[in-house]
């Protein structure tokens, strides 16, 4: 008898054991429209979370990158309403500033949590920007050895030698050995390429003592910018606050200050992004609960039959939660995929340059994992809530449902 049955069994094609997963897949195929709506709900919530958080991170990276690429945490200046004259002016990017005694930076370097305070003298005459640097500082500086694309970096013993910005060199047909003029003549010893977002981006870089000597005002021993590097990224704000307190007439700029300027324009930071995403997740949970309650209501009779033939409440709960998790899994995967693509696109448009923030920030795999996890948790919550209703059904009343 057993052999006959086995032979018969082999004739049956693709007999699968009934389990919560393949039951869930049947229900998903049976209710295509509801499944599609649920999957889209999960996908949109996850994609929005990923895109918003990555956009916020991209903005933050773009606004702190100008400091990061010169190895700086804090900029120390004295801003001034100095009008430009035909002799030029001291600037920080587009801000006018007063020069101050270079020894002040030696004093600042002794402050707690400060690793270095590097002097810079930045001068503008008509459309040209001219920067004096200390070439012994190769970690924090207006231009760094890694920025040299041709020739060499400045040496402390260099006299009238200059580094020239690549774009300026191309515009003026300058090569190594050429002569470039800013108040005096300098031999081009190196061509540099720095990011457009570099706050210290200039046309010409020369040794600081030479700059102090050649400028008409003869600012010997004077600089107008201090680039400050802290001992740890975690104590930047604390150090900046100390500097503001100890040097009240100065202007202290940090990455946060730059970011706030950007935030005031676009009003999004990572905290805001998470808050908005959390609200969206709550809405998604409520939507899923409503949808699953509808699912349970449509299957009242079916659930009654199953309970009548011996399915316990836990069997019913397991089944409904499994269905919800399957939909959440599909929605989570789709959402992660969409979120990844939207985040890539958003990052590439942030920052103004081609490629934008994508050069600085990549889509975080952990964030994709969090998005997927949120979808699953949402699915479990919706499934549990709606299955409680199913568990309360009495078989005889449920079966009589039309």
């Amino acid at each position: 008898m057993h052999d006959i049955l086995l032979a018969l069994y082999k004739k049956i094609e693709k007999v699968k054991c009934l389990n919560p997963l393949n039951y869930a897949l049947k229900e998903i195929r049976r209710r295509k429209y509801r499944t599609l709506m649920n999957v889209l709900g999960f996908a949109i919530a996850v994609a929005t979370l990923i895109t918003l958080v990555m956009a916020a991170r991209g903005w933050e990276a773009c606004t702190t990158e100008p400091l990061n690429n010169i190895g700086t945490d804090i900029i120390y200046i004295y801003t001034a309403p100095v009008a430009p004259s035909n002799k030029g002016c001291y600037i920080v990017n587009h801000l006018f500033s007063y020069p101050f005694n270079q020894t002040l930076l030696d004093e600042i370097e002794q402050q707690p949590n400060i690793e270095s305070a590097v002097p810079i003298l930045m001068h503008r005459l008509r459309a040209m920007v001219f920067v004096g640097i200390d070439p012994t500082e190769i970690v924090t500086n207006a231009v760094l050895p890694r920025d040299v694309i041709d020739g060499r970096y400045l040496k402390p013993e260099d006299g009238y030698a200059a580094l020239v910005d690549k774009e300026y060199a191309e515009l003026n047909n300058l090569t190594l050995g050429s002569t470039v003029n800013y108040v005096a003549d300098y031999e081009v010893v190196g061509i540099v390429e720095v990011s457009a977002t570099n706050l210290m981006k200039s046309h010409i870089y020369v040794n600081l003592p030479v700059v102090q000597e050649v400028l008409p005002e003869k600012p010997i021993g004077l600089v107008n910018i201090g680039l400050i590097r802290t001992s740890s990224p975690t104590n930047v704000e604390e150090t900046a606050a100390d500097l503001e307190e100890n040097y009240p007439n100065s202007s202290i700029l940090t990455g946060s200050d730059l970011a706030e300027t950007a935030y005031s324009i676009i009003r999004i930071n990572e905290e805001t992004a998470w808050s908005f995403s959390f609200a969206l997740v709550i809405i998604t949970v409520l939507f899923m609960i409503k949808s699953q309650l509808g699912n349970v209501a449509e299957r009242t009779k079916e659930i009654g039959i199953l309970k009548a033939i011996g399915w316990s409440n836990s069997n019913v709960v397991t089944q409904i939660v499994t269905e919800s998790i399957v939909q959440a899994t599909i929605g989570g995967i789709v959402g992660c995929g969409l979120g990844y693509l939207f985040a890539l696109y958003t990052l590439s448009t942030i920052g103004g340059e081609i490629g934008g923030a994508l050069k600085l920030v990549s889509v975080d795999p952990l964030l994709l994992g969090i998005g997927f996890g949120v979808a699953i948790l949402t699915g479990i919550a919706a499934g549990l809530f709606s299955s409680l209703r199913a568990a309360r059904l009495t078989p005889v009343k449920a079966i009589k449902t039309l």
Partner: protein
Amino acid sequence: MTKIYQKGGTNEIKAIDNVSLNVKKAEFLTILGPSGSGKTTLLNILGGLDMPTSGKVVIDGLEISKLKQNQLVKVRREKIGFVFQAFNLIPTFSAIENIQAALAPTRMTKTKQIERATELLNLMGMLNRSNHLPSELSAGEQQRIAIARAFANNPKVVLLDEPTGNLDTTTGKEILSLCHKASKEKGQTVVAVTHADYVKNYTNRLLLMRDGQLIQQE
């Protein structure tokens, strides 16, 4: 036992009125009666799907009328098989899956579940329709599957609610023959309620029910 709907209300209905019933092991009992006589209500109470307003139900030595819902589920799963009036197959399950639905919550291994379902399909002559959905089966075929499902767990008691109600006479007789055979082979107690007269040819004992009362025994 007695079952009253809307007790104390203005439309109080005594669906079961002081019914006392003893069914022996391996007996095939049939309860005849017209529509509205309380047969289905009686069967639902015997099957633990409903509770009597007063009185008790004892199955295989266990008083099920005092059990909690989760205990009743266990009894329904292990001791009782039920064939509903309208088949009540799960529409998205194939024939074999509908039988497996009764086995899924048990401790039976997956392989055993499929073997048992296959065995029952063979007994019902439905092996070649195992992967068909209920919508692809005739009424007689659906009823066979429903019966197979009811017998899946080798219950002590099988309750049949109008097993031939939606079938022609020939098919109905086939179904009753199958139930009788399955019951005889396994020694299971069968209680069938029906208004079809020809069922008495397959039964050990026949009772009549009218207006909620068992009024005659033959």
